[in-house]
């Protein structure tokens, strides 16, 4: 089961940020469409064959 916001605030970026991005690299990142998610576990192991942790398979796949 999961819950999500139907409209992400990250996707509604004021146009002014586009101008700011010309001068500020961090603003360029702010312009991106970003999906922020909270998963059931932290990603600590990256090898999906070495570990059976579900989160390793999720991030891998």
């Amino acid at each position: 089961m999961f819950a999500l916001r139907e409209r992400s605030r990250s996707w509604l970026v004021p146009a002014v940020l586009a101008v700011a991005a010309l001068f500020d690299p961090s603003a360029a990142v702010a312009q991106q469409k970003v999906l922020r998610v909270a998963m059931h576990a932290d990603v600590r192991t990256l090898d999906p064959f070495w570990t059976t942790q579900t989160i390793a398979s999720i991030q891998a796949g």
Partner: protein
Amino acid sequence: MVYDTLFSSDHEQNPKPQMVDTWTVSPDRLVYTFKLRDGLKFHDGTPVTSKDVVASMNRWGKRDGAGKQLMGYTKSLVAKDGKTFEWTLTEPYGLLIDTLAKTGTSIPFVMREKEAMVDPFQQIQEVVGSGPFQFSREEWVPGSKTVYLKFKDYVPRKEPASGHAGGKVVKVDRVEFIWLSDPQTAQSALVTGEIDYLENPAIDFLPMLRATPGIKIEEHPAMGTMGFIQMNHLHPPFNNVKARQALLYLLNNADYVNTISPDKSLQTLCFSYFGCGVAMETDAGSEPYKGAKDIAKGTAAVQGGGLQRRADHDPAGHRPSIHHAGGTCTDAAAAPRGLSEAGRAIDGLGYRRFAARGEGAAGQGAGTFSSPAPPC
């Protein structure tokens, strides 16, 4: 996210090609010849070749249970050319495609040959896949955040997305996995818009989330999540058949679902080992588990078996809350009758860890629920 697979499963659990374009099976069903689809590229810009596939399947087949099974039927697995590989079996094995399409750990991902040649009992150091997202190592902060960037050269399949199959069409530039260990904090982050998606919200918070404008709750997978109790019959106390019989008398399926989710709309009593609402559903052989609890018989089985109480304890770390609720439920039923510490709330990894240490107890499987006051 990072890696792609040869096959995957759609929303009805049917295997569908993913990296594979076409394949043929010989009339004697011993030789499978696969051809990779066009446009497959690793995140370092190199093309995906059948050599990468062969090395990846060999590494996966040394660790995964289903992979080991498949490799047991494998006579040879060879790259015929850059895009074609041939899988020859010692005898027909009807689950080959299904196994390659599996979506539970460990999934047969395709890595670069370089990483796939690493000893499968050692961790790879570089994460370079051919999936729709690139792992951003410089932004990775274990215990805090993991970042994935859209891989602009990824070519999705033409078919519409279905389950884990179909076209993986990316509509965002960047995905951030934010680690929030506290369920209350995670729920608040969703409500305030700090995150966009929350996997496994605690059951207790669902009414609040449902009442919050802009929050949508979906069940995934559609058939729900199923918990299991596994008795370790190799070690005490469940190496004693009397203990195993006693536990069956002392437990009741309904107690668990009531404990894990008091919300009746989320409950399903299921007595099929293969799950309910799926093609292989069957409750054959489940009669002993369907009846009401028989405390007297359970207690008698414990006493008649000469069982001893266990004094050790597994300190709880972070685990999905269904484990805590389920383990508590098992202990509440079993401990007063002499099966102390019978119900350890563990995930699959923990179960194998206990087994490796030669310890007993009944492990309780994965899930997504929570209840602070078990009624069992």
